[in-house]
C-alpha cells in the first residue's frame, strides 16, 4: 500500500512539474508582444547572449572542421574517395553537428548566465520589487532574453557550420591537396538548400527555444539562496543538453527519414 502511494505521489509530482513548466512557457509566449514594443531590451540581450558567445562558437566550429576533415580523410583515402571529403564534412555539420554542438555550447555559455542572472535577481528580490511596482517581470526580464536567445541560436549555428566548412577547406585544400574546384562542386551537387540547410536551420531554431526556455525557467523557479542558484545552474545545463539530444533524434527521424 505504501509502495502504491509512493508511485502515485511520484507520478503526480512529475505531472505537476510538467504542468508548471508548460504554464510558464505559455505565459512567456504571451509576454512576447509587450517586449517586442521595446526592442532596445532585446537588442542589448542579443549582445549579451549572441555576441559574447561568438568567440567560443567560432573557435569550436573551426576546431571541429579541422578534426572532422582530417579524420574523414584517413577513412576515405582507403576507398579512393578523398574528393568527397568536403561533402561529408558539410552534410554532417549542416545537418547534425552545427545545430547540436552549438546548442550544447549555447546551454553552457549563455544558458547558465541567464539562469544565474535571473536566479540572483530573484534572490535579491528584484523580481518581487518589480511585481510591487506593477511591472510584469515576464515582459520586462524574461521575454526579451527569450527572443534574444531564439534569434541568436540559429545565427550561431550557421556560423559554426560555415566556419567548420572553411576549416575543412583549409585542411583539405591547403594541407592534403584536394582540388579546390572539386571540393566545392561535390558539395554543390550533394547538399540541398531546403532539405539539408533548411532543416538544419529549423533544428537550430528549435534548440534555441529549448535552451533559452529551460534556462529562464530554472532561473525563475530557483530557490532564492546561493545553493538554490547553484543547483538551478547545474540543472539548466543537464536538462537542456538532454532535451537537445533527445529532440535531435526526433527531429532527425521526422526530417530525413522520408524520401531516400
Amino acid at each position, binding site marked *: 500500500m505504501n509502495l502504491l502511494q509512493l508511485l502515485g505521489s511520484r507520478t503526480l509530482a512529475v505531472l505537476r512539474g510538467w504542468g508548471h513548466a508548460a504554464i510558464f512557457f505559455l505565459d512567456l509566449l504571451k509576454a512576447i508582444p509587450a517586449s517586442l514594443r521595446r526592442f532596445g531590451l532585446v537588442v542589448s540581450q542579443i549582445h549579451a547572449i549572441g555576441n559574447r558567445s561568438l568567440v567560443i562558437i567560432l573557435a569550436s566550429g573551426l576546431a571541429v572542421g579541422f578534426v572532422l576533415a582530417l579524420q574523414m580523410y584517413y577513412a576515405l583515402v582507403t576507398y579512393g574517395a578523398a574528393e568527397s571529403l568536403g561533402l561529408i564534412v558539410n552534410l554532417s555539420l549542416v545537418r547534425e553537428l552545427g545545430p547540436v554542438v552549438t546548442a550544447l555550447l549555447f546551454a553552457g555559455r549563455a544558458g547558465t548566465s541567464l539562469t544565474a542572472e535571473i536566479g540572483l535577481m530573484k534572490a535579491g528580490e528584484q523580481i518581487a520589487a518589480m511585481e510591487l511596482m506593477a511591472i510584469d517581470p515576464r515582459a520586462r526580464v524574461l521575454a526579451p532574453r527569450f527572443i534574444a536567445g531564439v534569434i541568436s541560436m540559429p545565427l550561431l549555428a550557421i556560423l559554426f557550420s560555415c566556419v567548420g566548412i572553411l576549416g575543412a577547406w583549409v585542411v583539405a585544400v591547403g594541407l592534403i591537396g584536394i582540388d579546390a574546384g572539386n571540393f566545392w562542386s561535390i558539395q554543390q551537387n550533394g547538399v540541398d*538548400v531546403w532539405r539539408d540547410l533548411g532543416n538544419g536551420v529549423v533544428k537550430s531554431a528549435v534548440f534555441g527555444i529549448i535552451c533559452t526556455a529551460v534556462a529562464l525557467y530554472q532561473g525563475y523557479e530557483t530557490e532564492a539562496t546561493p545553493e538554490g542558484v547553484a543547483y538551478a545552474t547545474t540543472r539548466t545545463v543537464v536538462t537542456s543538453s538532454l532535451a537537445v539530444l533527445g529532440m535531435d533524434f526526433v527531429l532527425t527521424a521526422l526530417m530525413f527519414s522520408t*524520401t531516400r
Partner: protein
Amino acid sequence: MAKRSIETLVGLFVLLGLAALVFVALKAANLTSFSGGDTYTLVARFDNIGGLKARAPVRTAGVVIGRITAITADPKTYQGVVTLSVDKAYQFPKDTSAQILTAGLLGDQYVGLVPGGDMANLAAGDTIKQTQSAVVLENLIGQFLFNKAADSGAADGAKK
C-alpha cells in the same frame, strides 16, 4: 554612445550570421547549380530503373539540365514511370531517347537524354517513347557466364 556601440555590434553579429547562411547556400549547397527556375515536365517509361532515385540529375551530353521529381510504377504495364523536370531553356525533339546511365563504374545513376532529329519538339507532359533501361550488373554477369559456357560447350563439340 555605449548604447549605440552595442547596437552596432549586434547589427554586425546578425549581418555576419546572414552572410554565413548566404555563403553556405551559394558556395556549399546547390542553390546556384540548379535553382529550379522555369522548368517543364517530361515522362519516361522504363522496363527497369535499376537504382535510380528521385532528385537524381537529368543530363544531356553530360551537362545537368534537370532533376527527377518522381518515380512510380505503372500498375497495368509494370513499367517504372519516371517524371523529369527539365529546364525550359532546353527543348528536345519528339524522337529524343532517354537512357539510365551510371556515373563511373559504381557511381550514382542518372537519366541521360539523347536528342533525335525530329522537327517538332516535346511539349510539357509528353512521354519519351524510346527508352533504354538501366544496366543491372547481376544480369550482365549472368549473361557473360552463360555465353562463356555456351562457347566452351561449342568448342568441345567441335573437338570431338
